[in-house]
C-alpha cells in the first residue's frame, strides 16, 4: 500500500507540474487526464471505489473531453507562445513558496482530531460503498442534492446561451 501511495504521489505531482509547465494546452490537458486517473487511484487506496469511479467518469471522461474538444475547436495549438514575463514568474514563484510553506505548516501543526464516526473501512466494505453514500445523499443531504440539480440545469442553459452565436 505504501508503495502505491508513493508512486501515486510522485505521478500526480509530476503530472500536475507538467499541466502547468507545458507549452501546448493539449499536452497540459493530457497530463491533467493522467493526474485525474492517479487521483482515482488515491481514492481506491482510501477505500472509496465509488468516488474513484465517479472521478474517472466525470473528470477524466466528461470534463476533459469537453476541454480537449474546446482546445481543438478553437485551434489553440497556435497560441502556444503566450509567454509569461519574468516579473510575473518571480512573483508567482514567491507566492508559490510562501503558500506552500504556510499550507505545510498548517497541516503539520493542525490539532489531531480522533476518529469519531462509525464508518470505518470495514463497515463500508461490509455495507457497500455505494449504499453508504446513497443513504447519506438521499437522507441527510437531500436538500443540497436537489439544489445541485438546479445548478446543473442553470449551467446547461448558461453554457448554451454563451456558446450561441448571438446573445
Amino acid at each position, binding site marked *: 500500500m505504501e508503495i502505491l501511495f508513493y508512486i501515486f504521489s510522485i505521478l500526480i505531482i509530476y503530472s500536475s507540474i507538467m*499541466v502547468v509547465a507545458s507549452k501546448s494546452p493539449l499536452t497540459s490537458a493530457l497530463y491533467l487526464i493522467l493526474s485525474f486517473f492517479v487521483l482515482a487511484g488515491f481514492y481506491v487506496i482510501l477505500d472509496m471505489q465509488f468516488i474513484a469511479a465517479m472521478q474517472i467518469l466525470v473528470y477524466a471522461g466528461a*470534463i476533459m473531453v*469537453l476541454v480537449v474538444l474546446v482546445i481543438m475547436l478553437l485551434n489553440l495549438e497556435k497560441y502556444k507562445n503566450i509567454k*509569461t514575463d519574468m516579473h510575473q514568474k518571480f512573483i508567482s514563484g514567491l507566492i508559490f513558496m510562501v503558500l506552500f510553506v504556510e499550507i505545510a505548516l498548517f497541516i503539520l501543526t493542525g490539532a489531531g482530531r480522533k476518529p469519531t464516526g462509525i464508518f470505518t473501512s470495514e463497515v463500508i466494505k461490509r455495507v457497500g460503498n455505494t449504499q453508504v453514500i446513497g443513504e447519506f445523499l438521499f437522507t441527510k*443531504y437531500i436538500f443540497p442534492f436537489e439544489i445541485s440539480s438546479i445548478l446543473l440545469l442553470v449551467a446547461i442553459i448558461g453554457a448554451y446561451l454563451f456558446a450561441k452565436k448571438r446573445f
Partner: protein
Amino acid sequence: MPLNDYLIVAGVLFTIGVAGVLLRRNLIVVYMSLEIMFNAVNLGFVAVSNYLNLVDGVIFVIFIMVVAAAEAAIALGISIALFRVKGTIDIDSFDELKL
C-alpha cells in the same frame, strides 16, 4: 498511511494549481489549473473522511464534482464566447472589467 501524508500531497497539488493560475496566461490552462486545485481539495476531503470514519466528506466531494461539472460547462462556454469576440484567449487581453 498517516493522514498528514495525504494532506501534504493535497497541499502540494493545491499550490501547483495556484501557481498555474498565477503563471499562465492561456485561459484554458488557467482553467485546468483550477481543476487541479479542486482535485487537491477533493483528495483532502476523502482522506480526512477516511481518517475520521465519516462519510460526509465524501458527499462533499460529490457536490464539488457537480459544481466542477457545471463550472466546466460555463467556463468553456465563456471561453468560446470570449474567443469569438477577441480572437485570442490571452487573459491579459480581457480587461473589460477596468473602470
